[in-house]
């Protein structure tokens, strides 16, 4: 999940990613052993629910409306931190 989200901030997203994230979120929510794993997808679900346009801008048009992503170190660190703060990888 971190890899996919980081990819979005670096222009490596693809249109199929949204469905993939949904699928992964669902699997994690349903099958994780521990409660932490089950709620990992929650922040991303919120992002997709309330900031869907922004996400689509990143993936489909490779634009960052806030002007943070796609620019070297800043992009990397902010994306990494935000992605990492959502929880580690599944399993």
């Amino acid at each position: 999940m971190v890899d996919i989200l980081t990819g979005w901030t670096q222009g490596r997203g693809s249109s199929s990613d949204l469905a993939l994230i949904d699928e992964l979120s669902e699997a994690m929510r349903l099958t994780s052993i521990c409660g932490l794993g089950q709620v990992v997808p929650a922040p991303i679900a919120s992002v997709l629910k309330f900031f869907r346009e922004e996400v689509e801008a990143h993936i489909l048009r490779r634009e960052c409306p806030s002007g943070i992503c796609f620019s070297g170190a800043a992009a990397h660190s902010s994306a990494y931190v935000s992605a990492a703060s959502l929880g580690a990888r599944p399993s």
Partner: protein
Amino acid sequence: MSPTGNIELTIDGNKVSVPAGTSVFDAARMNGIAIPTLCHQQNETPVGVCRLCVVDVGARVLTASCVRPAENNMVVATSSEKVTQARRTLLDLLMSDHPSPCARQQHSGDCELETHAKQAGIGQPRFPKSSTGRGKDISSPSIAVEFDSCILCDRCIRGCSEIRENFVLARMGKGGQAGIAFDNNLAMGNSSCVSCGECMVSCPTGALTNKGVTGTHFARGLAAAETVTPEDLKQLPVFKGVSGTFLSLNQGAVVKRHFKKGEIICREGEYGSTAFYILEGKARVSISSPIAHVKTDGGARGFLSKLTSALTSRQDDRREEETNQRYIPIDAPVDLAYGNPVAELGPGDLFGEMTCMSLYPRSATVRAETDCTMLEMLRNVLDIMQRNKNFRAQLDTSYRKRALDSHLRGVPVFAGLTDEFIGTLRDHVELVRYAPGQVICRQGDPANTFYLVRIGFVKVTQTHPGGEMVLAYLSRGDYFGETGLLRGDVRTATCTALDHVELVCISGDDFNRMISQFPQVRKKLEEAEEAHLRQNRERIAMAQNVPLDSFLSQGLMEAQSLLLLDLENCTRCDACVRACADAHDGVTRLVREGLRFDHYLVATSCRQCKDPLCMVGCPVGSIRRRNSLEVIIEDWCIGCGLCAENCPYGNINLHPFEVMGDDPDHPGRKKPVVKKKATSCDLCTNQAEPSCVYACPHDAAHRVDPREFFAGMLGRSSGPKS
């Protein structure tokens, strides 16, 4: 609940009834519904980590059926769209990091992960592959580890710990870094793994696989190995009765080799992990190291004029208390005579047992005497063979016929036994094996058997009010158990197997017959016993008289002579070390490091430990202590360096010598080769004082009798001279 006490639940619309405590997984299985799983196996405790067996029981989240007990009125869906979709995603995730086709898939096409993925219709994984590989470990002789294929199902860990109780495998690391590890993350080959293969059998993927055995880890540089099928092996009488399943599982752990006349099969001092069984032909066992010890001599022109170290045999330089041992113990069914260390092995002989079971260096060089065919086997095969009664019977017979003689006579005490008597013993002796750590006899038990060590090392300890004391380490050719028998009393010490030990047991009756028939044997045994007892008494008395624990634990009190460096005077100029090196042909036996007592550094020269670890493992039994406790290296040292490695203080060094030896490239011709001999500080006994003491410019180095020297410090005069 039903009247029978069974649990009743519904699985996929079928009403089923199972005993209380049954898992949902088992409930389904018992009713013909297969739930896919990767981490669950019938013979292991379920852990529910792969999550593939999740089912819908109508709760907030899905539940792993292998760890979920069935409950009354539970409604279980094992393959609803929700469940199968979650499983597909999990498989997709696992496959994204799986090096498909993995080693197992390539080999036998039955990687469980790939099979499940294929059934679920997973094609190209959609998730990004992990960027960092997790590597491989090919250090084990029989099992290859491919960490990339590992799905962390823990099956191998449970196999290792629950089924085999070896406790080698465990998990290590967290999150994306998690993986399996051997011991505390050692390479598998260096770990305490016994290559039982349970992990490999448990592994669902290609993470742990049988090595493409042939040629990769057997002795290198030998004649090409020929694979042997289990069917071929079953044809051999010695494999009769060995489980065919075991043989096919361990296919490749035995290879057949053909050696041409003159070819070398193994060399003394080399490390190995295999044993050889001769099928056809003859082989010659010999020791190519010069049968001699290192002697340092001063030149004619006075002290330090020119000290040289040379090899001397016991004929020329008889050292104090040198035994008359006539046979050199080796890792084969025969012993080598001191005067002519050569013996012949033929069909049916097994050699290299100690190397294979306990990983000691090879004790002798074996060369094909005629063209010959041998089976080379790994430890797991040898182990199963050792337990096979046909094979054991053959080994026993061959031992009785050929080795008992030299083995008994090799012990100087028994040299006087007549052929006739040994003949009668032949049918009575019994070979018994002991596993590492197993107690052979306990202090206080009634004495009823006399033992000769055939293979391995035995630790003899005695319990005293002050604690336990190691009296000796015994190896091949040594004997024990006579004290109790001579006195007709109980065992005076506890004897424990240190490694894979095989003993020749002579019953108390036979022993008594022997000593009544041969009074000279009795006399010698009693003398030897008397000497041991006296020595032990002295050591124990000494240990109990001296109150200083640290002094004792450093073993200083037992020393007859110590090299001390006064740290208040020492400038660390290392002149002592150079002097030592100069005195011994450039090989220093002194390292200016060691334990400290007060303001003295006890430099590394043999400290005559209470527990002499150097004595364990010598493949030819050439290291022992004099009664004065000084270490003595016997002439037949093969220079393998194990004692030097075992000494915790680095007090044993290997001294290289150039001698004429066989030229491996031109059979029959000689060329200079370097042979090593173990040496330890000889205190420059041929000189007025040790060269290190002589060389110290600051008068900081002293050689002292510790009891005398420290007497004041210990607050009592315990030294004999004071």
